[in-house]
């Protein structure tokens, strides 16, 4: 009771300080920085621009302000020599705890007022896609939790050092690192969590979970550090060490610190959100596994049960295998690294299996011992919280699983056979059953259609569909469908119900029609897909998209109200959508060898070039030059300028981690920037755009050699009548 009374006393004393009010005022205004100049989240969605960025700015600025307030308050006692009087009335450690709690309470009060003040502004700025739940979570996690973290950090620094100057330096360095050099590591960003996008049309639970996890991990760590620093609080006139030795005589403090630190270190090491895939993106050991002799797969099926509340998935996959080798074999399965396999039965009998700890390209490999039986029905039960790829750890949110939206990609949907060949010509015929809330529409990312096979009394429905392929991607959500006919294709355009008004107002369907017509006219009609049909699926904001036979993914960021109403772009949608649609022509209808991922010749080169051409036609030459050609030239110049490109001997002496960081960035640059620029150079050399269109049309419609159906760079050069050297750039890439 006395403690509560003292806490209230300290709290109200704090509220009487003008510095507290100054801090609160500055914190309340800090979301403004997110609207004006501090914009760490890059995506173009309304929620990113008008919710994520202000909340993140509020967290960073508010955190720094409250850290300063903490140091000012803690120093004030000793500065004004009240400490000696206060310590005589209340033990110094009690007082330290009271001050911390009072500061946190003031921060909570300030945060509550700030969040309430900014609510109407955010609602007005975001418009029809505003979501109150997202607002509360974004402000709570991005801003609210930053304040106690900063207070704990500053308070710990002061309790250790008892010097304001040193504490200021510590807080500045700790914050500075989080904001600059640590910004690329999502786990190290204690002040400014790695948030690159918030979705307007779908839920954001995954990114909120990620931020909450990191916030709680740091909260545990800083609480632990604070408790240790608390043991260093000087008392009985002793120095820091002697006070600490006195403090640890009562085991509660050290034990609490130990538990908190152990908890946060474990949480750090065992974080369930991002995998531990090999950072070397050139290594593809799973693809290089040799196929089992005499073992084939004729069919597989899966029952998938997503838990839309917990964000987890459980499932049962059944594989029909033929073992003609007459001996037991070890089959390799790729599963999402967040999943565990709970049981494996072969023809109803449990068989040994071992989960592997090596991960690559967002997959972990498990090995299963197959019996010598000629026909094997292999039943694998799996489940867990799907993890996202390490290479995209600062762009989390892709594998969203909620009652509004779901995305399960490849081995997150169903374990993939790595070393078992398909039986016959058809590649792994697969049937999938999935149970989801009835309001969600299931959209397989392939030519197949999903259908409801059962409606359950608990408000869920079973959907099923079939497709062929070793992987498989599935989207589900509260979608609307619009049918478009363009370029001889029947296009099913799926978009979020929340976005209906914006889509209709902006004529998104007409814009899609324009892009498909362009590609068909210039390169020829798509000759594959399910009976000339194509699905276009608006995905949750993902920073890009991908395409497969009969389906393309369109990022929601291309369809934001701001983007669609951009007068500079007319009514056509954004370039990512164009890019992914073009992949139907380059990359799918015409394949590129899946060899070295660092090979500059890939589907991206022609796709980027075509996207540029469409953008040029739709938005004008100046726009295309500004957004495509000039950045490519800049990037290529940067590439050729790069010290390590010119001096690879230095690259080889770097430690592996640093080397990979550099080489991965350079490879991407060559595919996305150098190659399209080379194609543009070829365009000039062959006589202009019309001539290049003719060449590309010829390549698109060429006779395929099914032994090696890939479009090679040599074929492209031959079609252009050019030599490789003619397209090479030296340092100057003016063309």
């Amino acid at each position, binding site marked *: 009771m006395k403690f509560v009374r003292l806490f209230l006393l300290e709290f109200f004393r704090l509220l009487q300080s003008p510095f507290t009010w100054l801090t609160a005022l500055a914190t309340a205004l800090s979301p403004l920085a997110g609207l004006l*100049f*501090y914009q760490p989240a890059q995506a173009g969605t309304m929620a990113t621009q008008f919710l994520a960025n202000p909340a993140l700015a509020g967290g960073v600025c508010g955190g720094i302000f409250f850290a300063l307030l903490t140091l000012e308050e803690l120093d004030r006692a000793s*500065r004004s020599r009240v400490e000696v009087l206060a310590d005589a009335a209340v033990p110094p450690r009690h007082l330290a705890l009271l001050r911390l709690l009072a500061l946190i309470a003031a921060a909570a009060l300030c945060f509550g007022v700030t969040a309430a003040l900014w609510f109407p502004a955010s609602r007005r700025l975001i418009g029809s896609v505003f979501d109150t739940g997202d607002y509360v979570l974004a402000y709570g996690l991005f801003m609210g939790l930053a304040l106690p973290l900063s207070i704990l950090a500053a308070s710990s620094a002061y309790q250790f*050092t008892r*010097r304001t*100057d*040193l504490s*200021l*330096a*510590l807080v*500045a*360095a700790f914050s*500075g*690192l989080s904001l*600059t*050099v*640590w910004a*690329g590591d999502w786990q190290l960003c204690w002040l400014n969590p790695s948030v690159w996008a918030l979705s307007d049309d779908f839920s954001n639970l995954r990114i909120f979970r990620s931020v909450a996890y990191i916030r709680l991990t740091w909260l545990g760590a800083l609480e632990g550090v604070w408790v240790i620093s608390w043991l260093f609080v000087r008392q009985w006139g002793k120095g820091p060490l002697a006070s600490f030795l006195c403090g640890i005589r009562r085991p509660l403090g050290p034990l609490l610190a130990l538990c908190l630190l152990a908890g946060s270190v474990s949480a750090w090491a065992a974080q369930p959100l991002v995998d531990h895939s090999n950072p070397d993106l050139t290594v593809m050991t799973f693809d290089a596994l040799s196929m089992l002799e005499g073992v084939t797969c004729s069919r597989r099926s899966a029952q998938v049960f997503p838990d839309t509340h917990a964000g987890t998935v459980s499932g049962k996959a059944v594989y029909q295998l033929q073992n003609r080798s007459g001996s037991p074999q070890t089959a390799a399965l790729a599963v999402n690294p967040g999943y565990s396999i709970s049981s494996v039965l072969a023809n109803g009998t449990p068989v040994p299996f071992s989960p592997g700890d090596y991960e690559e390209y967002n997959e972990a490999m498990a090995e299963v011992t197959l019996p010598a039986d000629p026909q094997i029905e292999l039943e694998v039960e799996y489940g867990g919280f799907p993890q996202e790829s390490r290479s995209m750890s600062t762009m989390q949110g892709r594998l969203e699983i909620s009652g509004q939206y779901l995305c399960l990609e490849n081995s997150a949907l169903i374990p993939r056979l790595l070393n078992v060949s398909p039986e016959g010509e058809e590649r792994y015929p697969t049937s999938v059953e999935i149970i989801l809330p009835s309001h969600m529409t299931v959209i397989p990312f392939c030519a197949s259609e999903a259908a409801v096979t059962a409606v359950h009394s608990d408000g869920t429905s079973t959907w099923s569909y079939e497709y062929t392929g070793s992987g498989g991607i599935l989207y589900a959500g509260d979608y609307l469908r619009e049918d478009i006919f363009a370029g001889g294709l029947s296009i099913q355009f799926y978009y979020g119900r929340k976005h209906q008004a914006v889509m209709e107002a902006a004529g998104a369907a007409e814009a899609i029609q324009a892009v498909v017509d362009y590609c068909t006219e210039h390169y020829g009609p798509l000759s594959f897909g399910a009976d000339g049909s194509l699905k276009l699926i608006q995905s949750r904001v993902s920073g890009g998209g991908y395409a497969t036979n009969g389906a393309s993914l369109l990022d929601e960021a291309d369809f934001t109200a701001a983007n669609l109403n951009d007068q500079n772009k007319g009514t056509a949608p954004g370039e990512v959508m164009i890019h992914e649609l073009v992949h139907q022509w380059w990359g799918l209808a015409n394949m590129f060898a899946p060899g070295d991922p660092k090979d500059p010749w890939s589907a991206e080169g022609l796709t980027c070039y075509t996207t540029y051409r469409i953008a040029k036609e739709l938005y004008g030459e100046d726009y295309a030059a500004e957004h495509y050609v000039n950045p490519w030239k800049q990037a290529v*110049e*940067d590439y050729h*300028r*790069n*010290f*390590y490109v*010119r*001096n690879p001997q*230095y690259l080889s*002496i*770097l*430690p592996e981690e*640093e080397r990979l*960081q*550099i080489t991965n*960035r350079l490879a991407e640059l060559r595919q996305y920037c150098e190659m399209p620029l080379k194609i543009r150079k070829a365009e000039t050399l062959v006589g202009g755009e019309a001539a290049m269109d003719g060449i590309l049309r010829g390549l698109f419609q060429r006779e395929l050699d099914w032994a090696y159906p890939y479009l090679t760079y040599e074929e492209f050069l031959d079609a252009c009548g050019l030599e490789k050297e003619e397209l090479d750039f030296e*340092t100057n890439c003016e063309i």
Partner: protein
Amino acid sequence: MKRIVKYECRRLIWNRFFFGFLGIFLFYGWQVLKHEVLPGVAGTAPFSPWSFGSYLSRMAPFLWAGTLLFLTFFTSRKARRAAVLTDASPADPRRYGLARCAAVLTGAGLLTLACLGEAAFFYGRYVHWGHWETLLAPALTVLPPVLALALGGGWFLGRLRPWLVVLWMALPFLWMALPLPSALGIWNGSFFAEYPLTLGSLDPGFSLPGAVAAAQGAALGVGGIAFWGSFWGNAGRGG
């Protein structure tokens, strides 16, 4: 005054603050070297004057803050209580102030040396390189104006109001966040990332455009004038 310099250095350097700050400073520097300098700035080598200059620009706010934190040894409330004794001494206030300034410069010099030494160790370890003479120009371009402006401005402001030193300390952290004109590019590091790209050659030698040189010169000059102004009149004592 040698003894005063000696004792002031002892006060400023031989304490937990200095070693603690040095630890934080070196840790921050190592992170900058590893994540920003090693990939090379503006396509140049990590040990180019440009990459090194970028590193120094990143470290400059901490060097600035460190120098001013040394200054707070003379402006703090505690120091002002001791000043009633030193003020009563017959020592020439200007000479006394200069002696204290020499101690601050020694501290700042040690931090600078630590910053340079860390880079030396880093270059030696990661890229096996050690031609230091090429890095002298960026070091002289970045460091003296920073130290002069920090110390001169801090000394001058500290005389007016001790708390102004704290505000002055926060200045570089503010300008790192704000868009600055290109002439002030050295102060937020953008100069080293952007200017070499405009020179039209690979691995260009270190050079300064007039505006940037003038800005650095102005910073040096303003720092010098502020410093001189602090000692002009009868107020050099106490920082």
